[in-house]
């Protein structure tokens, strides 16, 4: 290294952050060019967890391929499954019963809360505060327990199927969710006490990783990261699916465009999700949880695209069908992939410490980027 430092005239230092690094939460590999502490360039190298899900799906039937998508963005597995189910339903024109719709939305929002909880803890951990991580897990575990009870798994549920959901809600579901709501309301102010209000945290976040609204659109940044720059990009509002158009909730927007704005968007989004859950939990209609579908699903020849809002941004599912039982080509437009492309733009000129702050607020899930 001595020679290397001497060789570069400007004293630039090229550092590998990842694929095994505490801040990348997975196997993301960033090649960083540093000048002292200042970042000159960030170059992502992907593929360490690429499982070629798109290729795998080409050989799976329309019922089977949904389970694979849980493994993309494993923190919002429900929403991924939901997107796939929606796409198949769009192609087959299946009418989903009301009960199934409500169950799906409930599960989506619970997943979103769980995902944001984990993000919050991991974000604080990136910045050096360890305690919030464990506190976030207390609430997250409650949601996971609810999921486990109804769907049978904690992380990769495979609960959504074309035409509805796989099983009906567990009889205890409503009670457990209400308990969770009480717990959440009791504990959420602690998040502000421990992290949001903290002066060190605010200084680390404010003005860091700024991205302008134009760049947000150009880079295709979506989700809370885009809304932190004031770009309205909530698919639930813009292109409502399921019953989102009938629900009362706000699209959270901040205009500062820095890491702190993105942080606030996510925190307030949890409140909005709680609002949705509160609206629905007592109003789950009776009826079927699954539409009657054929045993073998065949999509007509054509192309189908659905967009849903995951916890990280816009997930697009693009199915090209040749009329068979398996998709001819499937493409997942994952939010993390586009969000990552803006990372270099966001952190250039910042300090090394800013990199983890910006990366934390982008909420990258590496399997989602690599697919």
């Amino acid at each position, binding site marked *: 290294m001595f020679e290397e430092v001497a060789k570069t005239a400007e004293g630039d230092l090229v550092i590998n952050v990842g694929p095994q690094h505490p801040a990348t939460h997975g196997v993301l590999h960033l090649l960083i060019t540093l000048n002292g502490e200042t970042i000159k360039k960030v170059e992502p190298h992907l593929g360490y967890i690429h499982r070629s899900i798109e290729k795998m799906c080409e050989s799976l039937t329309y019922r089977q391929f949904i389970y694979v998508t849980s493994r993309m963005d494993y923190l919002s597995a429900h929403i991924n499954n939901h997107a796939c189910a929606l796409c198949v339903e769009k192609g087959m024109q299946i009418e989903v019963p009301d009960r199934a719709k409500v169950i799906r939305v409930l599960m989506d929002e619970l997943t979103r809360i769980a995902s944001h909880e984990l993000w919050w803890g991991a974000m604080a951990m990136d910045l050096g505060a360890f305690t919030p991580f464990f506190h976030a897990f207390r609430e997250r575990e409650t949601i996971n327990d609810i999921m486990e009870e109804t769907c049978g798994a904690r992380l990769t549920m495979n609960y959504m199927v074309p035409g509805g959901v796989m099983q009906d809600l567990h009889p205890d579901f409503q009670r457990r969710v209400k308990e969770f709501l009480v717990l959440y309301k009791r504990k959420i102010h602690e998040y502000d006490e421990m992290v949001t209000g903290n002066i060190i945290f605010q200084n680390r976040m404010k003005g860091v990783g700024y991205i302008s609204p134009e760049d947000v659109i150009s880079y*295709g940044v979506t989700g809370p990261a885009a809304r932190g720059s004031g770009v309205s990009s909530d698919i639930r509002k813009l292109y409502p699916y399921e019953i989102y158009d009938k629900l009362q909730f706000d699209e959270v927007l901040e205009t500062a465009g820095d890491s702190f704005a993105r942080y606030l968007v996510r925190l307030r989004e949890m409140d909005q999700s709680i609002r949705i859950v509160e609206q629905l939990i007592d109003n789950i209609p009776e009826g079927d949880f699954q539409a009657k579908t054929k045993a073998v699903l065949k999509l007509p020849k054509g192309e189908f695209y659905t967009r849903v809002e995951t916890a990280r941004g816009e997930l*697009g599912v*693009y199915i090209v069908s040749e009329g068979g039982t398996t998709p001819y080509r499937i493409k997942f*437009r994952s939010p993390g992939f586009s969000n990552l*492309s803006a990372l270099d733009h966001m952190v250039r000129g910042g300090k090394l410490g800013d990199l983890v702050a910006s990366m934390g607020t982008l909420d990258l899930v590496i399997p989602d980027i690599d697919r």
Partner: protein
Amino acid sequence: MTNEELKIQLTALFPTATWEEGTEWPTFQITPAEWSTVANELRTNDALKFDYLFCETCVDWKTHLTMVYHLSSTNFRHNIVVKAKLDRTKPEIATVAGIWRTAEFFEREVYEMYGVNFLGHPDLRLLILPDGWEGKNPMRKDFEDPINMIKL
């Protein structure tokens, strides 16, 4: 703008485009040669303003490749799909990384997965595949890997 209005306007702008029927969003096909000017027009035209490329991918049709661009306008909230048919042996198309910067990553992915060469791309390197990858492009239909691919 509704889909019909959009279609009328786009037909006027790009008379050479061939339209597909029965799709959710207006879908038209162009030749790779005109893609660069079409993309510029879509991005800059005040009535269209397609400033958000939300999906860019490629489909291998065994006889040819098709680039598929999903475009959206954050101003007017309308979407279109543009397709370009590429030659399978020597696929080449102009890059749009200068127009929509998100395309930089999408195109790198398509480049390694399908072998499409994007002319004028600022940084066309392997993104997901390991360095020094040789052989066929994995997402093409005729890709075979006897070691790692298991046929059930």
